[in-house]
Every structure is written in C-alpha cells, then in structure tokens.
C-alpha cells in the first residue's frame, strides 16, 4: 500500500536530487551559468539565493491565510524583493569582493524562477515548517548543482578547485580556458544534463 501524503522528509530531499531545480527541472539557469566561473563564486551565489529562497518560503507560508489569490503574485514579489534587497546590502557591506563578482546577479535573484516557483507551488499551500524544509531542500539542490558546475569549470580552466591546485604544471600552462567562457558553461551544463538523463536521476 502506498502512502497518500508525501512524508515530511521527502519535502526536504526531493529538491536535492529527484527534483533538483537546475539539473532536472532546468529552472534558475541564469545565475547558474553566469556565476560558476569558480567553485568559490558558485558557493557565494548559491548561499545568497538560498537565503532568499528559505526566508521567502517561510514568510509566504506565514502570511498565506491573509493573502487573497488575486493579489498573491504581487505580494510574493514584494516579499522576495525585500529579502533580495537585504542580502544585496549585507553582501555589499560585509563581502564586497563577492558582491563585485556576482554583480547584477544579486538583484536578479528576485526573478529567479526557483524562488517564485516554490512560493507559488508550495509555500502558498503548505505549513511553515514544511515550507522551510522545501526551501531548504531546493536550496541544497541549487547549491549542489552550482558548486559542481563551478568546480568543474574552475578545474578545467585553471586547474584548481576552491583555489587548491589539483593539476600538474604542464596542464596549468595550457588549460581549457574555454570552460571559463560562456560557451564552456553552456557545453558543460549540456553534458551534465545528459548525464542526469542517462543516470535517470529525475525518475
């Protein structure tokens, strides 16, 4: 007999692999390709987006009973943009070098399909703790995808991961710089997605 209600745990875990927003659902691509030129930047970007995702999921869930369906989208947008602005200024003040790298992608978190998507598809219709788990799971999945991509790009293009040199000198004198540029990003994510399909990760 299959259980009708998904378990609490699945709220958390589905966002990580089975319904990984980037690799399986293919949403939230803009920051994924743009900010993964190194593993460290990828981690920074995913941390910022995760902050917004988790907090806006929680707040949307908290106020869902007071929000009529007809104005829910503007309300979601206001809530999300508030957290985006918060992380924007916090980064500017306390992590200026990361902020300079991420550039316009920090405010662009507000149109990240993942965040608006989870608010609409889950947080608006579920309790606060469940929404928190859902946000956390998707955040972890997003972080996983970005860090993998960032590490791969950094590894192939510069020979390091998180700044630690992992390749011999002869490689680093003529690395695959292609990976750091836009074409490399597109190419790599195509390969990763093909791999995910092959490994049936989304099933």
């Amino acid at each position, binding site marked *: 007999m299959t259980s009708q209600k998904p378990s609490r745990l699945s709220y958390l875990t589905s966002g990580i692999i089975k319904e990984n927003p980037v690799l399986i659902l293919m949403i939230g691509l803009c920051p994924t390709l743009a900010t993964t030129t190194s593993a460290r930047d990828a981690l920074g970007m995913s941390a910022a987006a995760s902050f917004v995702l988790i907090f806006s999921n929680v707040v949307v869930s908290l106020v869902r009973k007071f929000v009529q369906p007809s104005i829910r989208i503007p309300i979601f947008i206001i809530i999300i*943009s*508030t957290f985006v602005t918060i992380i924007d200024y916090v980064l500017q003040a306390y992590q200026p070098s990361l902020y300079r790298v991420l550039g316009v992608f920090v*405010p*662009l978190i*507000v*149109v990240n399909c993942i965040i608006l998507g989870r608010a609409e598809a889950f947080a608006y219709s579920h309790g606060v703790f469940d929404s928190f788990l859902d946000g956390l799971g998707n955040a972890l999945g997003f972080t996983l995808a970005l860090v993998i991509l960032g590490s791969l790009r950094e590894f192939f293009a510069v020979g390091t991961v998180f700044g630690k040199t992992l390749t011999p000198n002869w490689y680093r004198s003529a690395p695959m710089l292609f990976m750091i540029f836009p*074409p490399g*990003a597109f190419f790599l994510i*195509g390969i990763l997605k093909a791999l995910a*399909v092959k490994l049936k990760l989304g099933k």
Partner: protein
Amino acid sequence: MNLSKIFIGAFLVNNILLMRFIGLCSFFGVSTSLDTSVGMSAAVVFVTMLAAWVCWVLWHALLLPLGLEFLRTAVFILVIAGLVQFVEMFLKKYVRGLYSAMGIYLPLITTNCAILAITFLNVDYGFNLLQATIYALGVGGGYSLAIILFAAIRERLEDSPVSPSFRGYPIAFVGASLISLAFLGFANLFGISI
C-alpha cells in the same frame, strides 16, 4: 560613451543571452519553434523599452532625490510586473489576435531576467535617457537575434538523429555553446571589451 558603441556592445559583443547569460529560462523554453521565438522577441523588446523608460524616470526623479535607493529592486520588478499586466489587458481588449498568439508567454515576460537586468544596468552604468534607450534597444535586439538564430537551429535538431540522453535540453545546450563560441568572436570589436 558614444551611442553606436553602446548599441554594438549590447547587440553583439556582450550579447545578453549568449555572453551574459541573462534571460536564459525563456531562451530555452520558447526557442522550440521559430514563431513563438519571434513573438516572444517582439514582446520582450516592447516591454523592455517601456520598462527602461519608466524605471529610469522613477530612479532619477523619485528614488534618488528622496534617498530611497534601497527600494530599487522592489520598485523595478513591480513596475515590470505591472507593465506586463497592463500590456496583457490592453492586448486582450484591443488586439485579440496577438493576445491569443502570445498565449502563456506574456506573463512569462515578468520573470525574464533580461528586462530587470536592463533597468538595473541603465542605472549602474550611469546612462542618460538617450543612452538608456539605445542600450535597451541593443539588448532587446541582441535577445531577438540570439533567440531567433537558436530557434532555427533547434527546429533542425528536432529532425536530426540525437543520442537518447542528449535529446531535448542537453543537445540544445551544446548547440547554444557553439553559437556562444561564435559570438565570443565579437570580443573587442571596435574596442568594446567583454
């Protein structure tokens, strides 16, 4: 900053989709057919121009003088959402044909990163209204160029033998990688750096 450089930079050298990765969700979602791509491009260019003007004016006439810079993100995205809503209602009432042709793509424009990005970059680059207009035109044009080119390729890919794991998105990404490589060749054109 001369206007033709701004335009070429936005249109080719720093193509918003293929070089700056902004606007990708709609890029991959809509480019499965040439018709929807053309329709989406037109809508994007239109909303972009309007949004660029409204946000520029709001920033310079309201937010900046009143010291309300921190409301920029919220105000700009709400303006875009409102504009799209307005365009949708207008089309529904007066240009029914276009409205039904656009279908679901109209509301999707709100989450198009490219439009929000332009409103932000107009401010960050310190453009005056004319420069902002040219920049928005360049980006809108670059978006259209990239998506139409890509749609043409994707339509061909539909009929090509592609190995099972690559069908759909993966091969589309590899295709995008190749077009992006071509656009990389525009780097430093007329001295415009990427």
